[in-house]
């Protein structure tokens, strides 16, 4: 259930899905750099990038509705920050440019997330010589994310089923206690994982 929500990747056999992760990361990197570094008013370049992204999206066979929905969820934040830019000389053009640029980049990132497994991204980072401690932490985080989210839900439900109070103050204390218990459990689980790693020969 929650793992579907946390995992935007959907396995499909498209050509884009089958591309190696580093290639896709490079494409997105180039796209983002281009969009960010060109002058604000470079309409033709924006149009070109948009066309390229639409082609990739079509090839990827990710449903358009899914992409649109994800984009729509992220737009409010963009709008909020962009709104601040209105309060300056020629703010309207800056605002429009910001909107176009962020939307293009959002589109690229959403495509990347939908067509590439996070574990492949991690493997690419590993090959790029990113420090082991960081990659391991990212891997463990990804592995246990849905587990902890589920555990949070269970702790919340258990708490709610035993309480008869209402009100904000109670809700705050309740959430704080859930977070505390979650941390303690996480801490204990981390020690067991360390034992499991040692049991299979991991040496620090």
């Amino acid at each position, binding site marked *: 259930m929650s793992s579907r929500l*946390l995992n935007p990747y959907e396995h499909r056999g498209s050509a884009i899905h089958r591309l190696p992760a580093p290639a896709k990361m490079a494409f997105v990197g180039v796209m983002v*750099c281009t*969009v*960010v570094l060109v002058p*604000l*008013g470079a309409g033709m370049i924006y149009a070109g990038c948009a066309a390229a992204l639409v082609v990739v999206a079509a090839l990827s066979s990710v449903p358009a509705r899914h992409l649109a929905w994800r984009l729509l969820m992220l737009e409010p*934040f963009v709008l909020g*920050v*962009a709104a*601040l830019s209105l*309060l*300056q*000389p*020629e703010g309207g053009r*800056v605002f429009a440019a910001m909107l176009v*640029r962020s939307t*293009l*980049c*959002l589109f690229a*990132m*959403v495509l*990347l*997330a939908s067509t590439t497994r996070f574990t492949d*991204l991690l493997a690419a980072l590993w090959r790029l010589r990113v*420090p082991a*401690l*960081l990659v391991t*932490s*990212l891997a*463990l*985080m*990804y592995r*246990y*994310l849905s587990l*902890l989210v589920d*555990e*949070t839900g269970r*702790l*919340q*439900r*258990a708490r709610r089923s035993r309480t008869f109070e209402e009100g*904000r103050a109670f*809700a*705050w*204390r309740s*959430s*704080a206690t859930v*977070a*505390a218990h*979650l*941390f*303690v459990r*996480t*801490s204990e*689980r*981390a*020690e067991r*994982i*360390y034992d499991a*790693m040692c049991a299979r020969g991991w040496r620090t």
Partner: protein
Amino acid sequence: MHIPDGFLDGKTAVAAGALAAAGLGIALWRLRRTFPPRRVPLIGLAAAFVFAAQMLNFPVAGGTSGHLIGAVLTAVLLGPSAAVVVLSSVLILQCFLFADGGLSALGANVFNMALVAPMVGFGVYAFVRRVAGGGLRARLLATGFGAWCSTVAASVACAGELAASGTVLWRVAFPAMAAVHMVIGVGEAAITTLVVAAVAGVRPELVLEAPLAARAPRYASVAAYGLLVALGLVLFVVPVASGWPDGLERVAATLGFEAKAAAPVASAPLAGYVVPGLGRAVPSMMLAGALGAVVAFALAWLLAWVLTSRRPAGGRTRALETTVAA
């Protein structure tokens, strides 16, 4: 506070990225040397914990609710270097998986929320704790005020980056971001303090002992982190805040708007947007900031007092429920 793509220009994104990489590098280096091996998996798991905890609701009014950011919480429970790596991991995941925070802005977001926030917050925490004593109440006060400071500091850095990029005017960005985050910071302070107090109720040793780093931080690494934060301030905040509005407007004007008359850019647009009495705006902003800090400190003190005042003598705090749920 996640900055999307397209809001930062090239130089700001690169500068922030360099600072973020340096800070992350220092944190990783310190962890490899001082973090007990038994606790290493906890870094990754704590990142998952922060992510899950950020989903908890802290209802405010109507349908809105506050959420945990988690910089100071992580720093208090795991130590500042671990907090840097934990928060960076969360930001990286959010960027790649959920497009929350732009790829070009990842450096800036890491700098703001994974470096400035925990470092400033933990610095305040350590200072207040040293001054106020080592008991639980002092630690809760230090936690609350530290969390507030971390939120405000991160927002100031964010405003600075936006202004340095010419996206938003400093005189708009700074008051907007700072004011909003002074309020959000109160929520963060309250949530962080409540969670730390709850952890102290279940496992006092996790809070009352020193953070999990095996050795006390050496002067060199404290200096290194402080240097990074100061460098960021110098790069992003000082130039914009110190009254180069003319230069900034000129840059913004030339960036996107061709065929603008060669009229003096400095005066005409400014006239429409300037806050009356610009000369007095900066000190008054500083006064407002100082006032906000005093209020936040007082609130943090009050919360710490409330949470610890119902403690039975010598026993565990029962201000919060301590029975294990499920």
